[in-house]
């Protein structure tokens, strides 16, 4: 891993963990929700930014995972972590199945297919209200007592986000990450060079769906009430907005997008519902004029700062060019 960014991130993390004790409950809640979105954007970025699979069904997996966990706990009174694991496992399987079904579909067909899948899931959850309580909301058991402080939730969300980022980072920096990028750039060329395209497309779907389910189950057992709108298209759009504004081709920038949008959303509370219009506009402008995302240049700057020693040791411009090439890709 690159030296400085990792060190800076670790320092920021420690700072956040210390600083959070001084915050009030409201901002801790905002931070927890930002981390929930961070898991979603990083896993969607793995799917859309790395593998080029434009799934609009990411939130459907989050809601399937959440309902699975909540209902299993309601029916069989199993411990909460076990329910969460069950939800995640189910979504990995389901994600692999969807990935397998979509093997022959490219670009927009895949987007339409996953959009259809997500609508069916949402309609089913809101119609079968004898089981899921429909739009009235299913009451779920919370992980910790909500009467006291929200700090335990904060630390758990932090651990989950850090764990997810570590795992996703491990994937994208390994050969698997290269394979996924190769598939995105040119599927046939990748297949010709010996990448098992089918296997890696399925794998990307399974892994990303598992992380979506992780975020969904955490949300269910944090908020304490679960409605089918967790899997709605509007929330999917929010995840897309966050990922694209941050920069969908890198995991750290995708997470940065989630944090930036979530905090801006609270900061601009006075503007009410106009905030979403503003974010939509920012998304369109980003796509039109800065397709790599708004946080990507900052991140590349940070990465470049981490490499001065190598610059002074030998080739003065080589790392800089490498960084720019990465941004173009």
């Amino acid at each position, binding site marked *: 891993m690159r030296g400085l960014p990792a060190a800076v991130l670790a320092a920021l993390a420690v700072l956040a963990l210390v600083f959070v004790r001084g915050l009030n409950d409201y901002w801790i809640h905002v931070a927890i929700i930002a981390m929930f979105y961070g898991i979603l954007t990083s896993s969607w970025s793995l799917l859309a930014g790395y593998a080029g699979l434009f799934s609009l069904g990411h939130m459907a997996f989050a809601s399937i995972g959440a309902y699975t966990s909540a209902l299993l706990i309601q029916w069989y009174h199993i411990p909460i972590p076990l329910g969460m694991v069950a939800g995640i496992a189910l979504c990995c399987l389901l994600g692999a199945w969807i990935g397998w079904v979509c093997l022959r579909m490219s670009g*927009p*067909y895949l*987007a339409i297919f996953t959009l259809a*899948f997500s609508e069916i899931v949402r*309609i089913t959850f809101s119609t079968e209200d004898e089981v899921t309580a429909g739009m009235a909301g299913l009451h779920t058991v919370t992980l910790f007592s909500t009467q006291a402080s929200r700090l335990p939730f904060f630390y758990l969300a932090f651990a989950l986000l850090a764990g997810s980022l570590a795992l996703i980072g491990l994937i994208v920096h390994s050969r698997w990450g290269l394979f996924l990028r190769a598939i995105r750039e040119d599927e046939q060329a990748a297949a010709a060079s010996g990448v098992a395209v089918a296997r890696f497309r399925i794998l990307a779907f399974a892994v990303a769906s598992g992380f979506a389910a992780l975020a969904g189950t955490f949300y269910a057992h944090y908020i304490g009430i679960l409605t089918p709108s967790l899997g709605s298209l*509007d929330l999917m*759009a929010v995840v897309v907005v966050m990922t694209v504004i941050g920069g969908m081709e890198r995991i750290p920038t995708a997470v940065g997008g989630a944090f930036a949008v979530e905090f801006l959303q609270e900061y601009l509370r006075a503007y009410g519902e106009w905030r979403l219009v503003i974010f*939509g506009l920012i998304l*369109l402008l980003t*796509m039109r004029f800065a397709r790599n995302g708004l946080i990507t240049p900052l991140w590349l700057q940070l990465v470049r700062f981490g490499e001065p020693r190598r610059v002074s040791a030998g080739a003065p411009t080589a790392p800089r060019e490498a960084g720019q090439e990465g941004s173009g890709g």
Partner: protein
Amino acid sequence: MDYFLIQSTNGAVIGIIYALIAAGVTLIFSILKIVNFAHGDLYMLGGYTSYYVNSLLGVPPLGALVLSMVTVFAVGIIIERLLLTPLYSDRTERKDEYGIIVTFGLAFFLRNAALNVFGPFALKPPSFLTGLQRFGALVVTNDRIFAGVTGLVLIFGLLYFMKGTIWGQALDAVSQSRDSAAIVGINARRFNSLAYGVGAALAAAAGALIAPIFSLSPDMGVLPNIQSYVIVILGGMGSVSGSIIAGILLGEAQALFTAFMPDPTRALSYSNAFGVFVLMVVLMVRPTGIFGRRHVRME
């Protein structure tokens, strides 16, 4: 039996409206090679424009329909000029990715803007023609007849435009090969704008026609948008006549599904899921659609 007749008449009207939306999606797809995820929101915009032209300017409903088509045609061209031009540039990488995110983002933007400008409450515009018609046991409101007939007129107008006029022929040429069309002197850039504008205007007409039957709300476009994909996939990407047949079939199937499911509340919500389910199955079995034309595929 009477119930069957009423339901199938309603289904045919809804089917024609769906076909009108889907014809626009298919037109945009065959020229610009993108799936317009914001099409349902142009439909919503058409409905609201017609409502406000009617209630604020006092234009009669039919005039409001025409004005809303013209307005949304202009909006469509502005959207195409501002946002979609990178699709024609060789320097843009992964154009289908760009198309998906931009139109999906546009849908999000338009829907939330409508929520703020028009408000979340449902609005009901006045009828085009008040009253109803009786044919024996069959009772149909004039609005539905008007919507069905106008929809058919617009669809046949589009078919005539595509097959019988030089502009339509030029559009077809651009859809088959952009480069060859340029060689014979067709300005492809202009026809990109035209295709998006006409598609948007058709969606606006559908929205204005449906408004007196159902009602207007900012998220009214979400489900018809998905239904139009069902139709486009069934009818084949790029085939206008295929989408008309598929549109009416889908309208009928949904109406009869709702009518003859034993549990009425479930039938109503699952009738939307029904079409979507058909879409998933068709995509799995034959990803280019049933009546698809081979040359109109994603690159």
